[in-house]
């Protein structure tokens, strides 16, 4: 798939995320929009041996959304990839729908780990990567962390563990959007500098642009090439990316758009799809 085709899918993922949150009347649009390109490249190119008809195939690459509140984007990409029907998206968070507010391993096809409590997903990803090593298997494990999430001490316990056990089959991606719920990460509780911290923890650190497929692709290639160390892609992103009034606004972390705002958001995303020659 070329970058243009991938970009069209990424925008469709955005549209699903917005539809999910709007129809539920709650959920997390900001951090979902910032990871659409990352998820699209992972599920449509980077991750191997995925089979929507057999979501628990033993040799598949795994993905853990450590910042589990961004389930709308994960569900969007899983639906686009065929793990379940896109019709489910508008039932997100409803009592009779499997699409739980936060990713649930036992409920949602294609979800590899239950998350939602920040800091825990990256540890579970370590466990999966370690298990592959124990079994001599060559599947890889990917995990997206939030930048605010790195304030959890458990993240640094995981950072130490992954380097100590030389988990070079693990690739973490840090969604560096600069915002958390109460505002700018540097004002709430600065975790910076993140690159130097992970380097000091003996990780292979690669800086990438979260909205540029070539940059992300190069990052994933560097991660594969690096032996004896885990890799983290520090992905500079825009929270709320793709919807003008949501971009870089902490207020859109966990709020649903009203009908009018939703209509405008969809219009903006559709215009971007059209500009790429895609069908709406």
């Amino acid at each position, binding site marked *: 798939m070329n970058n243009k085709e991938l970009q069209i899918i990424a925008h469709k993922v955005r549209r699903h995320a917005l539809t999910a949150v709007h129809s539920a009347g*709650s959920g997390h649009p900001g951090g979902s929009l910032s990871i659409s390109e990352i998820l699209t490249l992972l599920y449509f190119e980077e991750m191997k041996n995925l089979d929507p008809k057999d979501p628990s195939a033993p040799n598949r690459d795994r993905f853990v959304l450590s910042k589990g509140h961004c389930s709308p984007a994960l569900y969007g990409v899983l639906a686009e990839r065929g793990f379940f029907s896109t019709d489910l998206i508008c039932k997100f968070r409803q*009592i009779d729908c499997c699409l739980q*507010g936060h990713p649930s391993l036992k409920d949602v096809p294609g979800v590899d780990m*239950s998350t*939602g*409590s920040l800091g825990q997903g990256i540890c579970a990803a370590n466990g999966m990567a370690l298990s592959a090593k124990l079994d001599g298997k060559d599947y890889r494990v990917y995990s997206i962390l939030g930048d*605010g999430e790195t*304030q959890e001490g458990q993240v640094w316990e995981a950072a130490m563990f992954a380097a100590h056990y030389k988990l070079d089959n693990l690739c973490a991606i840090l969604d560096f959007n600069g915002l*958390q719920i109460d505002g700018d990460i540097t004002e709430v*509780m600065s975790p910076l500098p993140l690159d130097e911290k992970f380097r000091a923890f003996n990780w292979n650190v690669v800086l990438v642009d979260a909205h540029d497929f070539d940059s992300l692709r190069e990052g994933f290639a560097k991660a594969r090439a690096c032996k004896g160390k885990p890799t983290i892609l520090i992905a500079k992103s825009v929270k709320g990316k793709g919807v003008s009034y949501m971009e870089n606004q902490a207020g859109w972390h966990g709020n649903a758009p009203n009908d009018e705002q939703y209509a405008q958001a969809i219009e903006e995303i559709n215009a971007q799809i059209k500009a790429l020659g895609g069908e709406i």
Partner: protein
Amino acid sequence: MAEKKATREAYGEALAEFGEKYDLVVLDADLSKSTKTDTFRKKFPDRFINVGIAEANMMSTAAGIATTGKTVFASSFAMFAAGRAFEQVRNSIAYPNLNVKIGATHAGISVGEDGASHQAIEDIALMRSIPNMVVINPADAYEARGAVEAAILHNGPVYLRFGRLAVPYVNDKDYKFELGKGVTLADGKDVTIIATGLMVGEALGAREVLEKEGISARIINIHTIKPIDKDIIIKAAKETGHIVTAEEHNIIGGLGSAVAEVLSENYPVKMSRVGIEDIFGKSGKPQCLLEEYGLTASNIVSRVKKLLGK
């Protein structure tokens, strides 16, 4: 019953109000707009500390501040305050018996859409099993305000459990909160319904239905789950012979268990526990979840009838 207010809302307002009168420091972990400690922050920015998304760190830091003589409130969602940071609460706060008040919001399944990962149904059990810890679960906004002041005046750790959902008032405006004292909201002779938190309103609803069917139910609100008011429970058992408990919590380890402990050692009578039947919650509208999990007046009514053999 028309007017409603969330207990977390009252919590934030109470902190801002009592911040005038008492030397308080308030800590939060990146959830101040949801826990409502934001209301305090706006008024006393210098006495508000955001620790970032780091609940374990928050609890032990709160303990350290409390050793210097200040009263500290530490807030997050109940899942992270009681769950994530359990051992810090136990060893840094309760063991040295420090003046840290844990303001835990978004407790129970009435959290709604966020789903099971965010619905604390074990927090009462966890907190009440820690020595020195006082556990309070207010039923309405007036009670929440009173509980905050009582927690400030109490010397030692207190766990305050608040809800996300707006709930009706069950008390009067001039209600006086008394730590450790159950409240008889209505008298009755056939059965006593002992409820806590948002289930108090449901218990009162159940009483009306039962009355029409010729069953007279006493209603007791237990806001302080620990130390529990043994006298009011034993008296109810003696006078009404049957006890039904109702709580928005797992039936294991919460109010129902605490009441059963009192009765089995003092005056055993037939009882039935209404609560979450040892299963995880899920996403959905709060009201739909409360119905699906049996946390309603009508489920209390059917439990009462079953217990009385009617």
